[in-house]
């Protein structure tokens, strides 16, 4: 039997006439998937018999999860690209005095000149590098804190991801402390490292010797302690607000409102009633007051320094107690 006759018998010619299946489709072939009769997936459980590390290793895992996320996007806590960009801008902004130092050292070698007074190492500049109001404490540090700390606990509260920690050998104290420490580390890395870099750059660019270092190191240390207190206070307040919220936006805005709002209210009261006592409610002003004393600047607040210190301690204590109580109730139906 010829091929044509066979095709006719099979009805291929009629099909082709009706549907035109011969138009370039000749080479198309189809296969029917051949399903296996059955498949047994081998489940081989390989027990892990390695040692489990000590408490600090587990705590470090929490710490790095939060800190590394700023640098690396995968495998760690997620920070929005805008947050990372803002962090970069804040870091670059806080390093502008270093650039100005370089310029002033290149332009003028006069130690008492304008450029040196503006950018060189002295009590005012060291204080200003940490506690200066504009732009650092008006824009940079509060924004940095709000962005880093805002979602630290509120995200866990909203998503319930704190349960991932509490079903592991991680105590609530470890969880809380590592969260706090990771936020404080980021703030310290920006605020204190740039401060130290500024001082080091001044020594290098101006070619200063040991006598200069010996003269200025107490002031520098005073500024460093003030910066450390700022990092501690801002972190504590920020994380407390994050722990009472389920939205990072609310926590961040609350922090900005508290830090900037208390300052503005105190300033308005001072203008109206010529008293600085309301500054005791402002975290920034308490820090600024203490910072002035630490670097040896004249104090420009009417009230006693002791009151500012007490207020600062009370703010930190209140913030940490709120944080502790909120963490103790995370994922828990406690009586």
């Amino acid at each position, binding site marked *: 039997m010829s091929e044509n006759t066979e095709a006719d018998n099979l009805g291929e010619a009629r099909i082709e006439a009706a549907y035109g299946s011969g138009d370039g489709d000749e080479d198309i072939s189809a296969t029917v998937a051949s399903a296996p009769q059955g498949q047994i997936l081998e*489940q081989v459980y390989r027990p892990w018999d390695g040692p489990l*590390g000590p408490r600090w290793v587990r705590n470090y895992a929490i710490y790095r999860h939060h800190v590394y996320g700023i640098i690396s996007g995968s495998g760690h806590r997620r920070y929005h690209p805008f947050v990372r960009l803002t962090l970069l801008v804040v870091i670059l902004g806080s390093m502008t005095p270093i650039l100005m130092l370089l310029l002033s050292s290149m332009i003028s070698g006069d130690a008492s000149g304008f450029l040196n007074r503006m950018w060189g190492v002295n009590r005012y500049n060291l204080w200003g590098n940490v506690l200066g109001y504009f732009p650092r404490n008006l824009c940079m540090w509060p924004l940095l804190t709000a962005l880093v700390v805002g979602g630290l606990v509120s995200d866990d509260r909203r998503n319930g991801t704190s349960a*991932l920690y509490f079903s592991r050998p991680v105590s609530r104290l470890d969880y809380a402390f590592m969260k706090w420490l990771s936020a404080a580390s980021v703030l310290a890395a920006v605020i204190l490292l740039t401060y130290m870099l500024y001082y080091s750059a001044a020594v290098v660019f101006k070619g200063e010797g040991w006598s200069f270092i010996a003269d200025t190191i107490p002031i520098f240390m005073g500024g460093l302690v003030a910066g450390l207190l700022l990092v501690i206070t801002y972190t504590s307040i920020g994380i407390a607000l994050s722990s009472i919220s389920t939205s990072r936006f609310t926590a961040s805005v609350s922090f900005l409102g508290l830090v900037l709002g208390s300052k503005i209210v105190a300033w308005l009261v001072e203008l109206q009633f010529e008293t600085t006592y309301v500054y005791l409610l402002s975290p920034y002003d308490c820090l600024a007051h203490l910072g002035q004393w630490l670097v040896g600047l004249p104090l420009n607040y009417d009230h006693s320094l002791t009151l500012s210190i007490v207020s600062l301690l009370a703010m930190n204590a209140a913030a940490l107690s709120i944080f502790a109580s909120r963490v103790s109730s995370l994922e828990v139906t406690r009586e």
Partner: protein
Amino acid sequence: MKSTPAIAFDQVSKWYGQVIGVNDVSLAIDGGVTGILGMNGAGKSTLFKLLMGRLRPSNGAVRLFGTDPWESTSPYRRVGYVSESEKMYDWMTSLDFVSTLARLHGMTRHEAEKRAEQALSFVDLENVLNKEIGKYSKGMRQRVKIAAALVHDPDLLILDEPLHGCDPLARTSIMNIIREMGSRGKTVLVSSHILEEIERITEQIVILHSGKLVALGNLHAIRAMLDQHPHRILIRCADSRALAAIFIDQKPVYGVRFIDSESLEVMTKNLSEAHQLLPSLILESRIPIYSIENPDDNLESLLGYLVGDA
């Protein structure tokens, strides 16, 4: 000397204000797979929360490997917990997620990654371990959670509704994993409201109802204890009346009931004796038999009898 059980509840009660969550529960579980069963509000979740240290008992004592989980997190080194709700970092790959959680047990980075790969391979996710969890199906997400619970080789695995929302293939895979863990000598506690699933996983059950422990032990042994509910044997045959006439004189047979002309229900209070006797009687009768079933020797009937809904 007897070792400490993995889980021990000693006269534990828990009240939420005026509402009672768990009422005077005492039980100890160690080794094998145990299914926790109960209707909604029976107290299953309360039991798990007490175990995981998220609730403090109003009365009694809860012990996880001999330690009070409310006071110490140390027993969690030996526990793998799969919660019912979805709580994961969706932006992470499953490898990153599982290794991050492994590090919370104190593993180094290298160990954690190696173990995470092994655990993900065990749950058949080795081909997608570098894919973001947010892109996973429900069944795959459940398996990631199981891998995260297994990564530190726990002695006790607690699974709260692990099969919820999974497709049949994922269910089979997860059930295999649970059975495998049980056969490895691990203690596995699994809750589900789908009784057939529990039946496929284990015969060791704990039944809760309104916060009270209603039954504990082997499913068939518990059923055998329920004398007030005669066992039913459903026989489909060619001539049900002729077969009934033969059965009714026999001692273990309590009664017969005709479902239709080809179906006969035999009631007995001694199921094993009835099953020994009936086959020989059927053979002697030469009546063609289509099927023999025990319709109430299953979890659904048992639960119904115990909680009074049957």
